[in-house]
């Protein structure tokens, strides 16, 4: 048994848990975007940052990949943590202005505008890689991957063309935290051969 404190409250955990798992188990909510229980954590979005305090020293870590250890003092809502989250959300707001989910989350932290240059207004993908990971780890296929690097990085099938490898199971659409995969999905599986006529509302 490992003993640590989360927000000054003493909690028990076991070896192998992450800070996020320990916190959620004890009812402490930490926001996440790139984290999903179905796949291994990657620590990409930095939204789940928490503060570890040790005397006068403190450091910020990504709770989804940080393992619990005896005697940790974890704080999930300090000004420092909230500041980082606001920064992350502000950048995400610029990167994916097309995502309703991101905008909602940002509003929760009081972020409504961004000072960064926005990408195209419809962009919703934050390139967290959840879709790529679920395709590889859960479905077992790797039909999609991230293409290009740096600011040009995006999600797609090889050559951004529909691929036969994709079985159109839709796991990537379901797991996507920003709703971006719904748009990318048709470019991966190919437009369904049977054209669905729009049903009358």
């Amino acid at each position, binding site marked *: 048994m490992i003993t640590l404190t989360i927000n000054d409250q003493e909690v028990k955990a076991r070896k192998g848990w992450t800070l996020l798992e320990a916190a959620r*188990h004890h009812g402490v909510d930490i926001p996440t975007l790139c984290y999903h229980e*179905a796949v291994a954590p990657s620590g990409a979005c930095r939204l789940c940052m928490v503060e570890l305090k040790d005397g006068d020293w403190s450091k910020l870590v990504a709770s989804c990949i940080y393992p619990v250890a005896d005697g940790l003092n974890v704080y999930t809502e300090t000004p420092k943590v909230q500041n980082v989250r606001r920064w992350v959300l502000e950048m995400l707001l610029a990167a994916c202005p097309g995502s309703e989910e991101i905008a909602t989350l940002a509003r929760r932290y009081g972020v409504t505008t961004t000072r960064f240059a926005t990408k195209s207004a419809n962009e919703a993908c934050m390139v967290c890689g959840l879709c790529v990971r679920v395709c590889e780890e*859960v479905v*077992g296929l790797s039909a999609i991957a991230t293409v290009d690097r740096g600011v040009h990085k995006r999600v797609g099938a090889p050559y951004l063309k529909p691929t*036969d490898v994709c079985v159109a199971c*839709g796991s990537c659409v*379901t797991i996507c935290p920003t709703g971006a995969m719904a748009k990318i999905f048709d470019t991966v599986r190919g437009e369904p051969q049977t054209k*669905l006529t729009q049903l009358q509302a």
Partner: protein
Amino acid sequence: MAANAKIGVFLCQCGSKIDPLVDLQALQGALQTDVDHCEILPYTCLQPGLESIMHAVAAHRLNRLIIAGCESRLMLKKFEKELAPLDLLKGQIDMINVRGHIAAVSEQTPEQNAAKAAKLIKAAVAEMHVMSPTAQIRAKIDGPVVIVGNGLAGYAAAQALADKEVDCLLCTDTLDADAVLRKVSDHYPGEGEQHPRLRRIVTAVAQSPRVTLMPPSELVHLAGVTGDYTLTFQDAQTGDSRQYRAGALLAALDAELVPPGPQFGYDGDSVLYQPELERRIRHSGTPKGKVVFWVNDHEIGMGEFDQLSVRAAWSMARHIRETSNLKTETIILYNEKMPVSLSSAQRAVNRKLKIAWVPYDQAVRPMVQDRCITFCGLKDHVEHEIDWDLLVLSPLRRVGGQALQTAKTLGLIHKPDRFLTGHHAKVRPEMVGREATYLAGSARYPCDLQETLNQGRRAGVKNAAMVAKAGSGELFVPRTVCWVDPELCIGCGQCQELCDCGGISVDAGAGGGLPRVVDPMVCTGGGTCAAACPYRALILQNFTNDQREARLAALANQLEHDDVVVFGCAWGGLPAADNAGTQGLKYDPRIHMIGIPCIGQLDPCVMARAFLEGAPGLLLLGCLPEECHHSYGVDHAWNRVSLIKKLLTLSGFNRRRIALAHADLNKPEEFIRTVESFSQTISSLGPIDRTAANRAKLAAMYDLAKNNTRIRALLSAVLRRPWENAYTGDQRHALEYDRDFSDALVEEFLQARLLGVLKAEKRPLGLTELSQALHEEERRVIEALMEMVREGLIASRHENRRPYFACVN
């Protein structure tokens, strides 16, 4: 029956995504009496939650788990993996998507949501009680990998297998590299650059002790299943047949290249096709004069493969220019639609060698004349002429002769297509036991030599991996596959005709009436074959009809008068519902989702059972038509739904109580419109009155759908075959069939109802009594009764010159 099922239910709070929206305490209370253990966890899927589950399983000796949380499509694998130490096999863990199908989409109170969740969970519990998991079977592979088909990919495959120390039997006529290279151009003209590689491969294969040569002869019969095949070959000349045992199979098939039709002026002398030119160059050296390559693939109707012909033409033109010291003139005439895909290095060579490329206007078809060809110029739209001494055409590509025969024997023909696509079920890889890729070569789709050798190598490597996995005991037979009960199978072969996986074959021998056998390593678990079996001899293991029925019955029993059951297929309806949940779209709470791998596996008796148990309406929500991930699931379900509709009409109920629909997983709004439209229909119809007469009719419906082999056989006989278009002459007249089918149904339904009455009364009944009980005319009833007596279903005797009827037993 699994009498020893000990069921644990774990309710996930999912942080705050389920708990305040669904009253989990009430839910736990509602389930307490039905299960052996019920527990609420903050997050079932996180490490702490998983540890609690493991603990509970050990403490209460649970052997069936139901996790009420979120999407099973995403999460089930994690639970199976993390809980693997508990020795729970696939199928023993089930998930109910309380978050996505209830909490996120409902505007009802937490108590109402909990009540709905309880219904769905109790249904799953009922299924778990019936489920008896089959044992985990390790696949064995006995014998060598046999490479049939005499294609060039076979050499690459043999090399890959030999590299991995796997024995293989290569069916080919020679292992002499020179002899092989002499024949290459028959199938792959203009591939000089690849010849050294092919030579290396053939030499390596010839030296390998792992490879045994088998002289080519025609493959005439294949029996057995993956791991234990028996192949019968017949020598074309002598008629001798030999048998080989094989652990695995690999087909290397090359497409046949033949001259294009007479409209292109082919004469085999001055107008040649590409393989012929290469043969001529080899025999009599570089031709003199002016050689014109007309890349006429678009005119042949094979425009999609133009690049193969263009590259072959360029490679031959280059050879001619180089060997003739630039004396022989070469021109490549090509359709403007065709991109010229030369690399910059090749363009430099082209400039040096002065090979002319002449595009022509696609609107006007070039005309071959004696010693010249006329075409419409691209820049000026004026007719131009090019003289030639030798005109070289593109070949016509097709699967021919022996390759076709071999493919047929191996069951590789799935679609009426020019080429062999092999089976490409769009399912998760874990659902198919065997390596999918075991067909290599240009018969699969036209390709160049490099691609063919790569395909062969890949197929070899994958097969070697499969053999190695089987050797180390790590190759398992997928658990959701069909199995034929040899006691019940009469060998009608319906299933084999329907199966798109190619997984059903005759156990041994040839001819009719032989029991079928399923290759579990090929079966994808689609299950439409099982639902189609007239004798219910085909069983989808771990997802049996009994399980479905138990679940549906338990759910239908609890439903309100305007609730509907929706079966969502795992590729359409279910993910669409999941996605509606992740997006938080609200819809009618009267909709109760049940996930199912494919709509095609719903047996008509399961549908009838829903009404018998009190469901007011049943909607089957499949994936997109023509996009079925197994094979024609929606189409097959269509026929079965129409049977139930007819039966509903016969019983005097509204036929709109059952419906088939489809959903695109990426369009949750349309999913909502579909299910809400159906639930409105049902609420406008009202409930089915639970009178004794109605119940008797519903019971007769169920009995007929389940046990009447005549109706079941009639139904499956017209299901759409994978190769339906290939045999159009075999089609039935739609209207005639429907009338005949309805007539048969009227007869059989009356008989089923009579049988129901006789069974219930348990005493001999007279004609008048029977006809009054059913409100039917005496004339019709006596006809049905006489028929039943003739069939031996009931017995008759006369008293006071009046007939009385009773059940036989």
